[in-house]
């Protein structure tokens, strides 16, 4: 770390973040950890808004979390440059690594609440981690902004009024893929398919959402085989051979993070995509950037919050400008959703003029806010933001970027209302199961 930045105070985020990169973030986090051992001044405690950031820098989710961490740091730095929330409540971010493991996420959430007195926890990435902390935040009455954790259970079966979901949930996401896949089934006469997914909450929920929605939309299409692999799998050849051996017309993957990158890389080298169509797998801006050379062109993928789909939105323009200035890179889906979470929180606080948790929670309830994906409203019955459910498109080389994006001419943007749990009565029935 530079000697010019020896102290990290609540008011100096801007200076700190100006030249911060990933490595320095780790050093900074360590320094922040040391600072927590120093007694705090009473005035600072009263003025400060304490924000807990729970994201993994270890495990399969680390690949996406990088964007989220940068976004939260950038957004809070920008807000702090104006004096903080309402111009007088500087934000202090306490970061913890979940290791993409629910038990660690729960432990760190408890610690953030007990020792750091955070008022809001943002992040979590893994749905399993998000669900693990929901009991805690519900009991301790702490806000939870699920920026990217998207199991549908987070807002349905496991619902708590303290959680607000800024990303499309897994059922919405699967539903949006089904919209595109159903068209392809009709066009290509596909009859059978195979699924492969990560064997944990999100993978299971996403696969189930896809299979259920497809059965409704295209009942003649049969599921031949389900393959599940443990999180962090490094060797997919046996799975890929098994998919090819089943001779399906297409395969659907509920895979994210590092595993997604490894799977696509190995599947491509094994010729899976030459033999079996693979529509609707997660291809976020992270994959587009990291696999710019190898990502099969024309492959149909799904993104959650791709910057190039909303270049006309003022907030997206702001995020892109901010991100490029700080990191010389375009924001990933995971960054955009975290920017929206922080600026969503700011909008709620601005609306009511105070930072009290219960008041902010009430302000977010059913709120309509500006996001990088346009104006969006939280669904009254489960706090799900009605941002687009999915962006389904074909990987395409754009002359405007040094990596491929989805071809804008053919990209389908599916509205939330088309694919989410149809009525609030249906949602409430699911929520009753939690009690």
């Amino acid at each position, binding site marked *: 770390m530079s000697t010019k930045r020896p102290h990290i105070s609540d008011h100096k985020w801007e200076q700190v973040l100006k030249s911060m*990169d*990933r*490595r320095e973030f*780790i*050093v900074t986090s360590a320094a922040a950890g040391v600072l927590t051992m120093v007694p705090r001044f009473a005035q600072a405690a009263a003025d400060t808004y304490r924000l807990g950031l729970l994201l993994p*820098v*270890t*495990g*399969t989710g*680390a*690949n996406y*979390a*990088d964007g989220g961490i940068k976004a939260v740091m950038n957004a809070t730095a920008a807000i702090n440059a104006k004096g903080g929330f309402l111009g007088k409540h500087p934000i202090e971010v306490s970061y913890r690594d979940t*290791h*993409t493991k629910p038990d660690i996420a729960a432990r760190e959430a408890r610690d953030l609440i007990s020792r750091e007195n955070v008022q809001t926890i943002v992040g979590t990435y893994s749905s399993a981690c998000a669900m693990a902390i929901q009991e805690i935040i519900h009991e301790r009455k702490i806000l939870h902004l699920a920026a990217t954790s998207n199991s549908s259970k987070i807002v349905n079966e496991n619902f708590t009024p303290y959680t607000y979901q800024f990303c499309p949930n897994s059922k919405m996401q699967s539903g949006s893929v089904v919209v595109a896949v159903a068209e392809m089934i009709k066009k290509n006469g596909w009859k059978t398919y195979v699924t492969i997914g990560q064997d944990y909450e999100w993978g299971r929920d996403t696969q189930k959402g896809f299979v259920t929605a497809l059965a409704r939309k295209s009942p003649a299409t049969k599921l031949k*085989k*389900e*393959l*599940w692999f*443990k999180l*962090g*799998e*490094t*060797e997919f*050849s*046996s*799975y*890929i*051979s*098994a998919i*090819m*051996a*089943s001779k399906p017309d297409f395969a659907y993957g509920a895979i994210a993070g*590092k595993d997604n*990158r*490894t799977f696509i*890389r*190995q599947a*491509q*080298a*094994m*010729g*899976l995509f*030459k*033999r079996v169509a693979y529509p609707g797998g997660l291809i976020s801006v992270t994959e587009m950037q*990291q*696999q710019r*050379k*190898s990502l099969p062109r024309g492959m149909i993928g799904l993104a959650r919050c791709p910057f190039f789909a909303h270049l006309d939105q003022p907030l997206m323009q702001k995020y892109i400008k901010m991100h490029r200035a700080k990191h010389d890179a375009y924001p990933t889906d995971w960054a955009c959703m975290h920017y929206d979470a922080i600026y969503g929180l700011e909008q709620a606080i601005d609306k009511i003029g105070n930072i009290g948790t219960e008041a902010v929670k009430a302000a977010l309830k059913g709120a309509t806010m500006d996001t990088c994906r346009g104006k969006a409203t939280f669904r009254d019955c489960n706090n799900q933001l009605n941002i687009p459910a999915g962006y389904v498109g074909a990987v395409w080389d754009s002359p405007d970027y040094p990596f491929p994006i989805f071809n804008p001419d053919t990209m389908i943007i599916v509205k939330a209302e088309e694919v989410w749990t149809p009525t609030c009565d249906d949602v409430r029935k699911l929520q009753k199961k939690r009690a």
Partner: protein
Amino acid sequence: MLLDPGVIFGQLLGGLSRAMILFLLSSGLSLTFGVMNILNFAHATLWLLGGYITFSIFTYFGEFLGENGWVLALAIVFGTSIMVGVGYLIERFLIRRMYGRELPEQLLLTFALILIIGDLIKLVWGVEDRSIYLPIEPLEMLDTYVNPYYFVIVSSGIAVAAGLWWFLQKTRYGMIVRAAVYSRDMVSALGIRIPLIYAGVFALGIGIAAFAAGVFLPLMPMALGVDIDLIIQCFAVVVIGGFGSILGTFVASIIVGVVYSFSILIWPDGALAVVFLIVIAVLIWRPWGLFGTELRY
């Protein structure tokens, strides 16, 4: 479907590839334990570090020479050499102090190494995955597609196995290493410097791990946490094969890899369970492993 030669070939090759990945990683672990009685829990983390170093060397040379297989081979040579040095230093300054200590103390030290190396990786390379791209075109064989790079991995595994066998059985140094397994005092009494033997063996184990990491780079990204997933599988392999037995590690890797691969085809939900059922069976009926010796156990 199961009798389709293409299907059998595909699963077999996939299983062998997994087997060789496990062997390349486990052989150093087994060797270190067999010779030095040190259970190096950080073995896979040192493998990961080797992967990151090889990645950086590949990227550096790739800028001048282009990113291709030759540059990868060069990077593997440099990466492995650096990690041999790292392994030597770790043995010299840390592991050496653990000889004769209880297993929990060894585990504590090597677990501390996992945390330290993990943080070092975060500081130097950040938290994003690191991998390299080689344009590998699939090969059509027996009515199925295979990744030709799997032949490189399988060949590497066989070459390392053969090299280790030759080294341990046919060279003077190898004979000293084997003798040291059974009687350190006697070897020492012959005027042979046991600490040097141990340092060499530890460095060799880490070198094989680093070599493996370089070979895997075109297939799998190096990422924090992968090491922990892999070390558990490595322990399963060495338990089945027998700690200290290179032949046992080789055979156990093939058993685990091939059984896992065909289980995915036949009973995908139980593939991992089948592997650990084998581990349980071995622990009950032959706790010293298929090729381990009761003396060692």
